[in-house]
């Protein structure tokens, strides 16, 4: 379909426009939506980093939890308790604190799995693009097959296999590793494809050829010359993948193959609360759900903005 498209070259008016659009910071300050998303993301990062100090209660401190406080609605409703702004769950845990701790877990797993996919994808992409030949064909075929399946299905499969191999049922602390591995391994393809594409373009440029001729090792060429050129797109993908990874984690936890209720992420909280939706305790589900949606939305907005700012043509 590439050949149907008009060739660029609308003359200088277009290039002038593109130049102005390429101004990343300018576009950030110009879009209130993006700035709000940045602020929200920052707030979540802050809460994640300082959760235990900021949260009004410790949801894991069994001593401070009493069943007397169980199933209290949000503070502004009838029977609400000012101590528990967003109400409590059926065990009497403060929802706000649970959400802060949950976001911390969600972000942690999100970041870890994106880093895993990034390292794996960028590495394989570089190798694939730089080495070419059979290696490239093999990696790209695997990528293609994997891409045919939704990443959540791949994550579920990896999850199932890992649990089969590792016997997770008995080792709760492995849940983190299993989650990070299954999400990380299911999302490397985007990185690899993008990096491979740019690498193949860069590989044939004169400066890389020249570096090759004067005997600089391929690894160094890739590290020093090719990698910097693919950082922009990689950053965009990483941001969008962070949102995806957070959704994946929440989904896996919601489906019951993620984190156990003893160490709840936002997804686990929603799963647990879902059972009480019909009995009227909607806040146990809806608040963690809203917190999750807000976080993902903010990250997505940042990703969208970043993509537009780095590549105005895509808008």
């Amino acid at each position, binding site marked *: 379909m590439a050949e*149907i498209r*008009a*060739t660029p070259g*609308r*003359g*200088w*008016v277009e290039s*002038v*426009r593109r130049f*102005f659009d390429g101004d990343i910071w300018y576009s950030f300050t110009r879009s209130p939506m993006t700035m709000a998303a940045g602020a929200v993301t920052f707030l979540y990062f802050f809460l994640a980093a300082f959760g235990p100090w900021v949260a009004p209660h410790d949801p894991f401190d069994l001593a401070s939890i009493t069943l007397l406080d169980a199933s209290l609605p949000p503070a502004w409703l009838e029977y609400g308790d000012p101590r528990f702004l967003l109400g409590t769950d059926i065990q009497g845990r403060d929802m706000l604190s649970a959400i802060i701790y949950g976001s911390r877990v969600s972000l942690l797993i999100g970041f870890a799995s994106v880093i895993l996919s990034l390292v794996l994808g960028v590495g394989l992409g570089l190798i694939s693009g730089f080495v070419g030949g059979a290696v490239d064909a093999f990696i790209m075929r695997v990528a293609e097959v994997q891409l045919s399946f939704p990443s959540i299905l791949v994550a579920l499969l990896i999850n199932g296999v890992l649990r089969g191999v590792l016997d997770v049922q008995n080792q709760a602390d492995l849940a983190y590793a299993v989650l990070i591995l299954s999400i990380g391994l299911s999302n490397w393809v985007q990185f690899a494809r993008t990096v491979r594409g740019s690498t193949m373009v860069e590989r044939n440029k004169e400066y890389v050829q020249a570096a090759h001729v004067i005997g600089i090792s391929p690894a160094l060429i890739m590290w020093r010359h090719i990698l910097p050129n693919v950082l922009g797109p990689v950053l965009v993908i990483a941001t969008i993948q962070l949102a995806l990874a957070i959704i994946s984690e929440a989904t896996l936890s919601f489906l019951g193959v993620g984190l156990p209720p003893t160490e709840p992420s936002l997804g686990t909280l929603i799963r647990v609360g879902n059972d009480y939706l019909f009995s009227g305790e909607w806040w146990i589900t809806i608040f963690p759900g809203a917190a999750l949606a807000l976080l993902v939305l903010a990250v997505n907005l940042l990703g969208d903005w970043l993509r537009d700012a780095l590549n105005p043509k895509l808008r």
Partner: protein
Amino acid sequence: MPLLEVENLVVEFPTRRGTLTAVNDISLHIDEGEVLGVVGESGAGKSMTGAAIIGLLEPPGRVASGRILLEGERLDNLPYEKMRRIRGKRIGAIFQDPLTSLNPLYSVGYQLVETIQTHTDMTPTQARARAIELLTEVGIPAPERRVDQYPHQFSGGMRQRVVIALALCVNPRLIIADEPTTALDVSIQAQIIALLKRLCRDHGTAVMLVTHDMGVIAETADRVAVMYAGRIAEIGPVREVIKNAKHPYTHGLMGSIPSIGHDNERLEQIPGAMPRLTDIPVGCAFNPRCPHAFDKCRTVRPDLLPVEDSWTACWLYDGEAGRTIEASKTLVAATKADALLERNHG
């Protein structure tokens, strides 16, 4: 009454950092059946002028002031729907790249029939017959077979013939041809120009021929307008402008054309580059590159002045300064011009 009149046309592009003026106060006219060449470097505003006339400036570009009249009727303030009925019917257009001007998913016949039926009451059968007739007229062999083929089955030159057929299919009075040969092989360029010239003469269609190629202009045009940085530098009969160029910029353009029979000649280039629209110099826009510029050129913008048989926007012809362009240079240009003009009206 001229067929087309453009009066004090200004085309602006509002951007985040101020408004760019792509076409700055130009006036010109085209008579019935006349070929007006518009020449200049890319970005001189020549394509913008064409786009403004057919009402297809790409947003955010807009006609900021001035008037465009076709047979006395104002076009520049027509609503979209009224202007649409004029496009294709009374003003045709030909664009630069024949490879991308045709929709790849529809047969050539479909696109012709569609255009004919948009502007006339013909039945599908009549329209198809007309389409085949048009393809014959633009010199496409076996039109009965070719009419059902898709653009990718035609070569570049053949596609531009189809584009010409599309532009001419309901006999418009005026055709805006924007660089119609630039994207083609040199060997095919001449054929296409000859075809365009012949068809327009046969149908009495006027042409505004936008190009950066002085050779094409010399060969085809009756009159020529030389544009520089959004303004007309010189306008007049093609022989006058080419053989007896007034504006130093036109001289420069002539000097940069290669010619046969002047083996030892060094092609001259105009020093510097055309200014960007963001920083057009005060005074005459050409002054930083002009070998003859003096104080007034750097402060006051010249308007078109009648000089002999053409009009030029240059202070050299203001009377006080007198003519200072060396005769030798004019002579070189003149011999070259003869060679160029040889084929005009031939």
